[in-house]
């Protein structure tokens, strides 16, 4: 079973929101409803997130992605639909039970950090545990541990306003990690940081994820960030999920023109991996250059610059699993998706 399932989630604001749901189901557009004074923020969103996965929801502002995220931990009540966490229907829980789930299983990291200015870094990191009633000594130990994980050793006694933006968000991350919640909801968590820091934080998140194997739902409006972080990516537009797939699915097989126009600016050479564009072959040419399957295709440029020989792609154990030819690389990097017969059925 998936760790998290969203089933046909709707969120409508305004007068008589329930009445709007059947109309949206039968195809009414967002604009029609807006004319009547109701706003459909999320329309029929369904997806599944596997344990240990990073699921990115990407969309521009107003696409409904933040509302979607808030329905996952009950900060917003869905107008219709269900959220299942380990098979448990969160929308059916009493407020008290829901709070219990929030303090134990689901934690959240915010866009503007949302640190409590009247609490020290340590007190902030331990907040979730404090709410749960964990005794002080244990709370501080676990909060300190979480701060170390987030790279903030030695800052426990500081105050949030003494830290830089990146460091503040590390505190936000530590606060979310300290409760040992399995599911992390991250709401544009790195969007307020400047680009270099953002990259650092993304690296650190990926690094932490390797060790901790959390289940993460990450909201962003930045496609490059989505591609870097996401095991799967859902693209939202006007309240609907228009495509849900891996980074490569979206790059290689955009579901519609909207997604296609979105991915124009993406640096494909850093998103696509050698493994994803290789041809599986049994025979491997001797003396050829090798790259790992995980490597971005950008790393193929150097070998091809020397000669035109195919480059060998190896798996984690270093065994050759396939090759990439120069033509294949060029095709993958071109804007226009290349449809090849054997991959049409393999898509999302």
């Amino acid at each position, binding site marked *: 079973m998936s760790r998290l399932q969203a089933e046909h989630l709707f969120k409508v604001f305004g007068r008589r929101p329930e009445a709007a749901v059947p109309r949206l189901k039968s195809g009414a557009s967002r604009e029609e409803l807006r004319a009547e004074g109701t706003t459909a923020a999320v329309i029929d969103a369904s997806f599944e997130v596997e344990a240990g996965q990073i699921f990115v929801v990407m969309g521009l502002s107003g696409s409904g992605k933040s509302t979607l995220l808030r329905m996952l931990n009950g900060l917003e009540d869905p107008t219709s639909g269900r959220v299942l966490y380990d098979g448990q229907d969160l929308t059916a829980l009493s407020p008290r039970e829901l709070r219990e789930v929030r303090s134990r299983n689901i934690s*959240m990291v915010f866009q503007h950090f949302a640190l409590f200015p*009247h609490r020290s870094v340590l007190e902030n990191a331990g*907040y979730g545990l404090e709410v749960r009633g964990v005794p002080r000594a244990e709370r501080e130990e676990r909060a300190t541990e979480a701060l170390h994980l987030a790279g903030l050793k030695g800052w426990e006694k500081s105050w949030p306003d003494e830290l830089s933006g990146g460091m503040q968000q590390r505190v936000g991350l530590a606060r979310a990690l300290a409760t040992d919640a399995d599911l992390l909801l991250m709401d544009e968590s790195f969007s307020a940081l400047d680009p270099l820091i953002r990259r650092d934080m993304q690296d650190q998140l990926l690094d932490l994820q390797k060790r901790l194997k959390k289940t993460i739902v990450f909201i962003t409006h930045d496609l490059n960030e989505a591609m870097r972080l996401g095991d799967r990516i859902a693209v939202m537009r006007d309240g609907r999920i228009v495509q849900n797939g891996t980074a490569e699915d979206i790059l290689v097989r955009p579901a519609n023109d909207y997604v296609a126009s979105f991915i124009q600016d993406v640096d494909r050479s850093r998103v696509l991996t050698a493994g994803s564009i290789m041809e599986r072959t049994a025979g491997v040419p001797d003396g050829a250059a090798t790259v790992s399957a995980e490597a971005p295709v950008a790393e193929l440029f150097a070998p091809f610059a020397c000669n035109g020989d195919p480059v060998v792609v190896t798996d984690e154990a270093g065994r050759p699993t396939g090759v990439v030819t120069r033509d294949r690389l060029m095709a993958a990097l071109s804007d226009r998706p290349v449809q090849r017969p054997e991959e049409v059925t393999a898509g999302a």
Partner: protein
Amino acid sequence: MPRIHLGSWAKTAVDWLQAHLGGLFDAISTVLSGMYDGVDAVLGAPNALLMAGILAVVAWWLRGLLAAVLAFAGLALIDSFGLWHEAMSTLSLVLVASAITLLTAVPLGIWAARNRRVSGVLRPVLDVMQTMPAFVYLIPGVMFFSIGTVPGLIATVVFSMPPGVRMTELGIRQVDGELVEAAKAFGTPPRDTLTRVQLPLALPTIMAGVNQVIMLALSMVVIAGMAGAGGLGEAVYAAVTQVDIGRGVESGLAVVVLAMYLDRMTGALSRRVSALGRRAAAAQGAAGLSRYASVLRYRPGTAVATVGVVVLALVAGGMRIAGGDGDRDTVAAGKNVGQGKSVRLGYFPWDEAIASTYLWQNILEDRGYKPDVKQLDPGPLYTALAQGQMDVQFDSWLPTTHKQYMDRYGDKLTDLGSWYGPTSLELTVPSYVKDVNSLADLKGRSSEFGGRIVGIEASAGMMGKLNDKVLKEYGLDGEYKVVSSSTATMLADLDRAIKKKEPVVTTLWSPHWAYGTYDLKKLKDPKGAWGEGEQIHAVGKKDFAKDFPRVAEWVKNFKMSEKDLSSLEAEIQKGGKGHEKESARRWLDARPGLEDRIAPVR
């Protein structure tokens, strides 16, 4: 536009409430005056300078040495003015009113912050509470709770409530929504969200509201003084009504000292109690100060300050036990009729009222009673007597001047008989005003007198009579305007006019010390428009004779001649404001045997 009788509806409502919810009001009154008396007893108990020391230690703890020294100096100044007990009463009033206000305002503010509808309903109510002239609250306040501390407290609470509610609501609303969301996202229950996140972050704003509440409460004490609440308000009010500049400045300054103390202390307290404030203070402290400045800003720790306050309080307690209660012993043996029973004497600032009341204060003290003397305007005083909140007053002009009050409250009062009479009311001019000897002579000469007759308190029966009858009778009503002020203002105006030899016409009555001091002419009243001379009665509350049988007996037999009364008034006039009691004592001591004739001990 038809006349909408809002005023009479309000009056009807007040009457109905008075008739049907009297028990409730009594209960409220008991609780409130109990709170006030308790706080006042604690604050007023220690020796003045010791209490100033305690308050200075608090200042030291909150703000530093310089603040402590200034606080001590300011409070010592109040003591040197002889206003210490008044100041402590005022402080008690402010503290009790502020406590009640905050206990109501903060929860209301929280509620309003969490519920838009409540906020919408509260807003216009708060506007009304804040902008309605505070005097208006005093009228029903006095009707429901009689005179004294309680209506003053209630008016103060009503007036100082709005900033408390508003600042609390604002403070909570100002808290970043993302922080509240973060609290929820970690499973914080709503109540804890309030206590862990919203209130701590709103605290600086709420404390600014607290500061406002306290300052507004203090600004109300003068108005509360008009309703008979004691303290500096009463002192200021008395000074104003008696045109006593010196006393006015001193009591006003005492209010300022208290205001500054409370303002600075609550400001510092808000930095102490809020985590954000502590952070700011620490950052400021780290900036580095010169050695001199750091000595002035040195603040003892909470423990040290507590020890200081406790030590001073213990010393105060010790002194009180050692000092004992000396007053009681001064009652001569065999003359302690009252056995320490309290008698409440009310008076309005008319000279014969002052004279007779302070005379009786001395006599009753000598007979072992504890007379409590309070100045009020006639209206509130009669109301208080009718409600049994005041025991007796000595200056009831009957049957005419105070007719309106007797008509209204007569069945709730006891007439203790006349002690002086007959009196006369008249218009008076200085004798240098030629050719004006009778009321009829005033006609056609209004330009000479500036078209005005200098009157006394608008609520005085004499003023009504002058306007409604006397002026009409002599055809002067279109020509002269009666300017109402106060007895003291009238006399001050008379004094000023006489010094400049200006023509002036004033209301006056006999007996009055002014006739002995200035050369004045009483204007003849050939038509008898002022009516017969009146008798000055003592009037008690309904159960006066039952509660104070001996006093009632003495008062019923009490008589004073014009000569005695004018000399007593002159003695008090000579002694000056604030020394009425001592002056009456002197006058009494100069007449051996008189006291035993007035109040014989069987």
